């Protein structure tokens, strides 16, 4: 154990001699497989690198140095773009929050007792979640041309997958007994859901929508990179100009950083208050 102990503190729960030999062998094999794959990955990803990896840190410092100091006076040029970026996220989150309601109900096992429908919705949502936001943006830009609309659509589709899944999971943890009582007193399906289910999930629903809004703000700042509107578009054009525009680019990055932090702070405070 002495050798592996120093290398992989993560793997050790107790002194190995407490474990059966089989477990020890398994852990060792998995450990070496992971290390091998890691070394191979590092090797592969560095094969296109110009120069030696040992130059990288120095190189990095010298190039990153060109970004500093950020040109904060550039901020006055980008307020509108930053505002548009947040507005995209607001609209996309709102629309996603509306569309998500039927989808979340259909993909909650305790509400949709008709199994084929439940599985169909689940599969659809799982499929939706596998596609990264920027890929969606690229496709929508291809369909609608450069602008805000493809960005908003990409955000809607992207956040729909996440939101519907999280909300359906919340619905599945709900106390079903009031719903039974509502049904027993003659309520129709919509009445049962509205009076028995909605009050139980409303706080979590709001909290999850805010959470997805945070995700959307983060995603929207980079969507512009593929032509889907917002601050990302400006960032891309500044980086294209080369070294002289790097301080402008850094100013954009700093602004993005601040905006994301502020929105996350407000949103997390609101969510704490809700639950």
């Amino acid at each position, binding site marked *: 154990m002495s050798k592996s102990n120093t290398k992989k503190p993560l793997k050790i729960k107790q002194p190995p001699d407490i474990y059966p030999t089989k477990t020890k062998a398994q852990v060792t094999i998995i450990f070496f497989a992971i290390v091998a794959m890691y070394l191979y990955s590092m090797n592969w990803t560095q094969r296109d690198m110009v120069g030696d990896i040992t130059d990288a840190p120095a190189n990095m410092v010298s190039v990153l140095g060109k970004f500093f100091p950020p040109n904060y006076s550039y901020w006055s040029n980008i307020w509108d773009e930053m505002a548009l970026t947040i507005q995209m996220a607001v609209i996309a989150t709102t629309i996603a929050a509306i569309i998500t309601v039927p989808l979340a109900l259909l993909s909650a096992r305790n509400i949709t007792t008709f199994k084929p429908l439940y599985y169909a919705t689940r599969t659809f949502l799982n499929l939706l979640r596998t596609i990264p936001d920027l890929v969606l943006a690229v496709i929508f830009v291809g369909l609608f041309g450069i602008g805000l609309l493809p960005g908003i659509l990409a955000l809607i589709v992207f956040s729909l997958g996440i939101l519907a899944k999280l909300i359906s999971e919340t619905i599945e943890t709900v106390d079903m007994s009031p719903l039974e009582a509502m049904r*027993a*007193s003659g309520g*129709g399906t919509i009445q049962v859901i509205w*009076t028995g289910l909605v009050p*139980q999930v409303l706080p979590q629903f709001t909290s999850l929508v805010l959470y997805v809004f945070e995700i959307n703000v983060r995603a929207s700042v980079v969507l512009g990179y593929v032509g889907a509107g917002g601050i990302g578009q400006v960032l891309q054009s500044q980086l294209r100009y080369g070294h002289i525009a790097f301080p402008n680019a850094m100013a954009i990055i700093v602004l993005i950083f601040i905006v994301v932090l502020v929105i996350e702070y407000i949103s997390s405070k609101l969510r704490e208050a809700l639950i």
Partner: protein
Amino acid sequence: MIEFKDVSLVYPNGTQGLKNVNVTINDGEFVVIVGLSGAGKSTLIRSINRLVTPTNGSLLVDDEDILKYRSKNLRKLRTKTGMIFQNYNLVKRSNVLKNVLAGRLGHTGTLRSIFNMYSKKDKSLAYESLKRVNIEEKVYNRADELSGGQQQRVSIARVLTQQPKYILADEPVASLDPPTSHQVMTYLKKINKEDNITTIVNLHFIDMAMEYADRIIGMRAGEVVFDGPASEVTEKTFEEIYGRSIREDDLRGGTES
């Protein structure tokens, strides 16, 4: 009038819930169904408002076979049968008034109920119901702020607001302590007498069954094994129904508080 005619129920997993049940319950009766857990009391009671559907026989409520009912008739049936549950089944985050008004769902259009547009009459009916179970001072409290006994009284108020012809109570006192249990049973009995609402209660406490029931139906393994007026029932009857001697936990104890 509720008539079970040779009603059987087999659950999808093969469990026999009810077996050739033949029972007639007359209007205004206060019937207590006793039996061990798993004897089919709950299935019997839930058949009446079709929360479960018997697989054989016919079940007549006011001379109509409810086993043939589909959604619209089903809502009507459920509107005239109120139900009380062991765990009160209140929406914990909603206030008492909203919970009680839920009793009007069957009488109210979907849109109206979504926007909380209950009529003034409904609201005063809800408040009156709360008064009848002496819990009107909690009208704006959230349901989860109430004790178990208070929650069960709210659920009785919900049923009263529904203005049903029948009340089904599934183990209404199983989660309560002895004094509160007697209180809840007293309210049920009082409502039965004052409003002439046919009331069917599942209980497994022998002493409470004998104290409150007009008529006792005993069940074992899905079958009705006893049916007669409470006055004819002795400890021996219970031993026959339960298939074993009476133990202390078959008694609730305590007296009316």
